[in-house]
């Protein structure tokens, strides 16, 4: 009796384990399939000219440099606005705000901001930055729109990273005559930094891949040069991909997949950096 129960438990454990492995495979396979497929289709298009040249012949030939540079500028612009603001907001929420109705409202707002569809951000940016503030369809307006979209991600990740730093460090620092701000700057922030950077990169990575928010606010259908001021419109990889996939007749397949490959490499590259930072910090962490 006892031994048969033993076998049963063993069997059900193995069954459960196999089931979980299967589920994991089902989730991983599509991701791998997409990446492998895009690499196979897109790799032949990748050449020095493709990466460093301007589009020619109605974008059917030549390179995608303006889109690559545009996406880089947009990501950078988004970082300039959203990173300081996001980290400051997280410091306020984690270190200074008292738990009361106002704080709770702020938190609810942040959570809901994260759930708003990106096209709505696009419309909002069009109204506020392009028309009301008269920035026009520009890098600046698009970066600001992407910043608003990215902020909730950065705030949540940074707040979590700050809260993960043991409370005892703060108590000790203050007991040694530190002010609250000295404690944050010298102890809490350095300890939370890897977590904050990871959150920042993940937020920016999403911004880099978005089409809808920049559609009305800064993206150019075709621009045969690089943007030369923040008030210039710009090409961008995701929007360029949309354009050459749907708006240009007789578009060579290879260029579409090549563009997708560059975009994916850009985003996954950022992801890789985040992963490296996180694992390094974990190995060095002293608590």
């Amino acid at each position, binding site marked *: 009796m006892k031994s048969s129960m033993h076998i049963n438990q063993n069997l059900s454990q193995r069954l459960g384990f196999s089931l979980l492995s299967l589920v994991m495979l089902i989730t991983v396979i599509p991701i791998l399939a997409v990446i492998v497929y895009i690499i196979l289709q897109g790799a032949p298009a990748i050449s020095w000219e493709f990466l460093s040249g301007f589009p020619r012949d109605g974008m059917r030939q030549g390179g995608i440099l303006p889109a690559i540079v545009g996406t880089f500028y947009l990501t950078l612009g988004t970082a300039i606005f959203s990173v300081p603001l996001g980290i400051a907001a997280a410091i306020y929420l984690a270190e200074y705000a008292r738990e009361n109705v106002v704080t709770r409202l702020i938190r609810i707002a942040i959570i809901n901001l994260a759930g708003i569809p990106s096209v709505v951000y696009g419309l909002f940016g069009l109204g506020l930055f392009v028309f009301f503030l008269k920035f026009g369809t520009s890098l600046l307006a698009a970066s600001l729109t992407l910043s608003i979209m990215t902020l909730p991600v950065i705030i949540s990740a940074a707040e979590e990273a700050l809260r993960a730093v043991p409370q005892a460090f703060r108590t000790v620092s203050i007991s040694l*005559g530190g002010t609250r701000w000295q404690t944050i700057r010298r102890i809490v922030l350095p300890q939370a930094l890897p977590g904050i950077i990871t959150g920042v990169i993940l937020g920016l990575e999403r911004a880099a891949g978005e089409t809808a928010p920049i559609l009305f606010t800064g993206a150019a259908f075709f621009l045969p040069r690089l943007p030369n001021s923040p008030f210039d419109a710009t090409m961008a990889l995701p929007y360029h991909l949309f354009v050459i996939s749907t708006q240009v007749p007789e578009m060579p397949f290879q260029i579409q997949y090549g563009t997708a490959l560059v975009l994916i490499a850009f985003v996954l590259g950022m992801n890789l950096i985040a992963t490296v930072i996180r694992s390094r910090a974990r190995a060095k962490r002293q608590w």
Partner: protein
Amino acid sequence: MNKLIIQNLSLQYSDGTESLRDISLNIPSNAITVLFGPAGGGKSSLLRCLNRLNDLTEVRVVSGKVLLEGENILDPNTDVIALRRKVGMVFARPVVLPLTIRGNLTYGLELAGEQRKSRLDEAVERSLKLAALWDEVKERLGEPGIALSGGQQQRLCLARVLANQPEVILLDEPTSGLDPLSTAKVEEALQVLKQDYTIVLVPHSVQQAARTADYAAFFLQGELVEWAEGKEIFTNPQNKRTEDYVEGRFG
């Protein structure tokens, strides 16, 4: 001479329950005053009031004064930063800051704006010697503080407080996690330190209280039952409850 004079101090938690009821107690300078009694007696709350660390916690002052050389430190206008440099605290669990051994020791001075390397070096050596840790770590000051053993970490925490050149040292069960050998080292260090500092110790056992106390105060459920010279309290207590606790009949 009394370094600290506590007058009619009452504390409560933010939920309204009482922590300490109408405590009056003198803490003489250049001596070890021990606050002892069963858990929940309000000893730690009192200790935290003495350098206003209770500002960070749930404990509120209801009434009373704490005079440090005549100044009421519970006054809202007190410069708490200056107070905490003057009245340092060692906690039950050694909390080593995520810095090097040296970084831990210079932390308080750097917060106060001290940047001269010679001053910092001097403070590191002096405080480590006082905490009886110098010989063990002088070759490895650049290593992370966390690399030290538990007993060394606690002496590092003591040294870190000493580097600030305080006048009063508060210790909240500083040896509760340590082995007997490390405990003895900390207690020895305290015996030397009391010549120059005022020490307030919440011990982790009655035995430690008896070993270390120049003066002792017995706390029970928020009440100060009795305080006197250590010899007096542990050999000839006036109050029956003190006697019962000291002799191990409850606790």
